[in-house]
């Protein structure tokens, strides 16, 4: 079965009519009847207002939550069937506040999953150096620092490096640049777009910022009240005829950030 997973060529992630309600109370659905395929190497951006269910969808992928109805398949296998620890170690995860371990150095933070997977020391050390360079942090300067000695942008770079450490095929990102100042955010978005193209990972990216979605996505999926209301390429997204799409399009003109 493992070999089958390794050589898997279908959709990287697939939601099959997935619903999720908290404490299994029907009627209070956070996610209702979501079906969605994420091909290998795609960058799917989940766009929506706060409370639309974006983060819940993300947490259904790495089995931090299990669907109340339907199935979430990761590399062909339902998340309920996966050993959650094994599944999560194959999925990189980046969150808004980075969630770095304050008692670990930058190098130790990046080395987290390799150390959990008991990589030999030389391999881990080489990987840490490689990753810090990849995210634009000079290892000799940053490796031994603690997270509190970094700026918000640097912490987020470390968060990305940590997520990539064990070379997972899938990357989940929950508003990773949301807490940064606009200038740093734009910088990281540009770099991340280049990085994503180079790495060919399957990426699911959550944001409420349409500008960010248009910039990073190969496909934009718009959520409203736990349902998918639009799914389209970034090129066609603004032409989709749906009130929530128009509401987001309007945010481009008046929303936060630098006016176009």
């Amino acid at each position, binding site marked *: 079965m493992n070999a089958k997973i390794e050589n898997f060529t279908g959709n990287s992630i697939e939601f099959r009519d997935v619903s999720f309600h908290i404490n299994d109370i029907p009627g209070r659905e956070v996610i209702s009847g979501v079906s969605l395929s994420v091909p290998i190497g795609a960058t799917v951006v989940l766009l929506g207002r706060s409370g639309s269910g974006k983060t819940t969808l993300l947490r259904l992928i*790495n089995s*931090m939550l299990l669907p109340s109805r339907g199935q979430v398949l990761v590399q062909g296998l339902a998340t309920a069937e996966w050993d*959650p*620890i*094994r*599944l*999560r*170690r194959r*999925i990189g*995860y980046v*969150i*808004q*506040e*980075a*969630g*770095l*371990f*304050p*008692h670990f150095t930058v190098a130790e933070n990046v080395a*987290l*999953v390799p150390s*959990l997977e008991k990589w030999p020391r030389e391999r881990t050390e080489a990987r840490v150096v490689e990753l810090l360079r990849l995210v634009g942090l000079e290892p000799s300067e940053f490796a031994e620092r603690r997270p*509190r000695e970094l700026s918000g942008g640097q912490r987020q770079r470390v*968060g990305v490096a*940590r997520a990539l450490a064990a070379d997972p095929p899938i990357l*989940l990102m929950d508003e990773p640049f949301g807490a940064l100042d606009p200038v740093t955010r734009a910088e990281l978005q540009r770099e991340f777009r280049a990085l994503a193209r180079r790495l060919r990972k399957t990426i699911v990216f959550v944001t409420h910022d349409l500008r960010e979605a248009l910039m990073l996505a190969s496909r934009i999926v718009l959520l409203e009240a736990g349902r998918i209301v639009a799914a389209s390429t970034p090129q066609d997204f603004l032409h989709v005829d749906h009130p929530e799409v128009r509401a987001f399009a309007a945010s481009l003109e008046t929303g936060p950030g630098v006016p176009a």
Partner: protein
Amino acid sequence: MSTGLSDWSFFMEHRAEILGATLEHLELVLVSMLIALLIAVPLGMFIVQRPALRAVSIGIANVFQTIPSLALFGFLIPIPFIGGIGKRTAIVALVLYALLPILRNTYVGLSEIDPAVLEAAEAMGMTPAQIMLRVRFPLAFSIILAGIRTATVLTIGIATIGAAIGAGGLGTFIFRGVALVSDSLILAGAIPAALLALLADFFLGLLERRLRVV
């Protein structure tokens, strides 16, 4: 009222006895603290994610704390196995007093971890045991140590009452001094006890600051 000079000469004459009582006192405190730690720290880890148990165990620890210490020593004497006259009963009472500060701080320290850190730990595929030992515990350590410090100072003070039930220690001088209306005797017990408390407070405080990670 005796003068400071006569107190000093009393100290010098009885220094061997005072030193012996101080060591005995330290023994009571160290044994009690060790037992309290072995109970309270694992218990604190266990109750962090179990709200019902948390309320019950902290509630019980709280009750012991409210019993006047002399009364608690008295209550324990008739209880079989743990009671009776002597060190063992005193140690049981001291453990009961030391539990609450350690348990409460262990629980508070372990539960007040940045949620983003815990979410990342879980999402990276750490097992619950790894999250406890490699994330929660190290981050809570200085707060747990603060509880240990409070408990130690408290125990050093309350251990003087152990003398009332024949546990020995510095309280022996104090009780004798009260009975004989001798300030010198009272001070011979009280001053070393106060010094012990101050020293313990100082050094544990130092350790706490040294080990603070964030």
